[in-house]
């Protein structure tokens, strides 16, 4: 008899419990809530989508959300990628310590964290005091409640979700590959782009899809770090469902958000598998 539990052809049923749970507890209520996005004056149709996607204001909101999602993802990637390599080079005890330091901020709720972040960015805050003392600026910069502050704050909140997946892959990279490449005469730049990058790609993809999803859907952080100044999809969704009793607006935006994010996450998954095959 073959090992049925792990055999490629017969393991599909193992997905059933989780998938059916998610269908019942997540998809069904969401579908019910979002059905109103298709309902216009008692008739089903795409009129809501035409209305909101044809409105420059809402297009701006979608652009803002994409901007936040993409910038947060890029910044955390730029910081986390080299940091993950540095971590992997540290002695084991230091790696454990750094992991703990990366993990600890996650336990402080985002609301309290934004209170701390305000003290960092305010006019006599940490950043301005440092810049003034270094003589880089003459008068305090206005940082709070700007899109820059929001992106910095979001990067701060979501950095661990980028760093840990990349680190987990990077530290597994077998250095013999690099040695082999070097012995074949490959230069450092070639080795980086043709050996390290492809090998670390699964971690990068995991981090990117996690951070992109979390940051584009974030609600509390944008609300507290930039307020009304910079409309995002999640704030618009909340406005529709909660504040103005316009579920069609909330539902339409929620569906658009879900489609955008799912597309990007699935594409990144495809890229990863495409790379893995090649």
């Amino acid at each position: 008899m073959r090992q049925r539990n792990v055999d490629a052809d017969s393991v599909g049923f193992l997905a059933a419990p989780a998938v059916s749970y998610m269908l019942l507890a997540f998809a069904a209520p969401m579908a019910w809530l979002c059905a109103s996005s298709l309902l216009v004056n008692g008739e089903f149709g795409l009129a809501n989508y035409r209305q909101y996607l044809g409105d420059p204001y809402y297009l701006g909101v979608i652009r803002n959300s994409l901007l936040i999602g993409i910038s947060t993802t890029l910044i955390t990637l730029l910081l986390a990628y080299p940091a993950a390599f540095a971590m992997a080079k540290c002695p084991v005890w230091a790696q454990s310590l750094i992991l703990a330091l990366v993990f600890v901020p996650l336990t402080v709720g985002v609301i309290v964290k934004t209170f701390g972040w305000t003290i960092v960015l305010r006019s006599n805050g940490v950043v301005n005091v440092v810049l003034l003392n270094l003589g880089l600026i003459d008068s305090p910069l206005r940082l709070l409640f700007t899109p820059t502050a929001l992106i910095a704050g979001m990067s701060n909140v979501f950095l661990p979700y980028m760093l840990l997946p990349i680190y987990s892959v990077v530290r597994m990279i077998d250095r013999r590959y690099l040695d082999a490449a070097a012995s074949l005469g490959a230069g450092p730049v070639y080795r980086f782009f043709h050996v390290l990058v492809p090998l670390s790609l699964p971690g990068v993809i995991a981090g990117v899809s996690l951070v992109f999803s979390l940051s584009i859907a974030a609600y509390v952080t944008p609300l507290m770090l930039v307020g009304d100044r910079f409309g995002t999809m999640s704030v618009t969704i909340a406005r529709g469902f909660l504040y103005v009793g316009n579920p069609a607006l909330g539902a339409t935006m929620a569906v658009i958000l879900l489609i955008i994010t799912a597309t990007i996450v699935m594409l990144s998954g495809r890229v990863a598998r495409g790379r893995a095959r090649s």
Partner: protein
Amino acid sequence: MTMTNKRRDLLVGAAASAAVLACPGVLRAETRELVVSGPAQLSKLFRQVFFSRFEQATNVKILFDEGVSLSHLEKLRANRNRPISSIVMIDDPVMVTANNEGLITPITPAAVPNLSRILPSAIHKDGAWINYMFPVATIAYNTNLLPGGVAAWADAWQPKFKGQVIVPTLQLTQGVLTLIVAAHLETGLPFEQALQNIDAGFTRLKVLKPNVLAFMANTSQAWNLLEQGEGSMMLSVSSQPVAARRKQGVPINTATPREGMFAMPNAIALVKNGPQPELAAQFINALCSDEYQSLIAGNLNSNPVNLHATVPAGFERANNLHVPDWEYITAHRAAWADRWAREIAG
């Protein structure tokens, strides 16, 4: 080993307490309970001032479910068939919606005799809901930054306050007050007619933008910005928490702007088909009584709605507070919110 045991104890303890919580009826059947849904910021004060008093007098245990008006509304809707709360304390505009959706039931003079002792302007829709107090909605300022105070709403527009003014967003109930004031300043009409000319409010508020530090949706963060002095003044805020914070040594105060001030819409209503209706009416009756209303001025820094209530020496009763037409506001809210997002927030 001890670690593991401790953790297991903790888990078992948590599980046990959760099991008790999951079936509250089992343990709580003996004492009568009254569930009141209300604003979080009043939780402690209500417990200290009113609940303990009422509990002693009636041998009832009051449970206070704290949250924001809109989450209470969502819960009222979802629990429509089997309400958990007997009483709901939310802002007037949310009451308008709750009443339109049939989620609350009128307070009658038969069940609440003290209804006759409170201001007619505090009773809405023939008693569908009432205001139990009128905190003043005005300007708050940081006394370190503005030792001279703020004399007028119009001052917020002065160029010297660039980047210093905190404004609540339209998402918050009091957000609309800023629009009314702006319309008043633009047109010179009294608040009541200014509300009908809200276009002018948008026009004037757009001019304020350079002075605005932030349009805030989170009140605790807004207060924090004022307290630490990142902003020097905050528009359209309830004076209610200010006295207590001042006692703690926080350098803030409320202004008495010459254009006038508003009544914050702190409302209370009976939940339709809520449990313990007699007890709930009894609590609202007590809340309207001279005794309880007298406690409002001293303990909640707000104006009693019962004019027979005495106020402590030193408390100045604010007269002529403007009570906006919340029904009109609620009817126009969605359109204004859309305009706000496009014109003011951007």
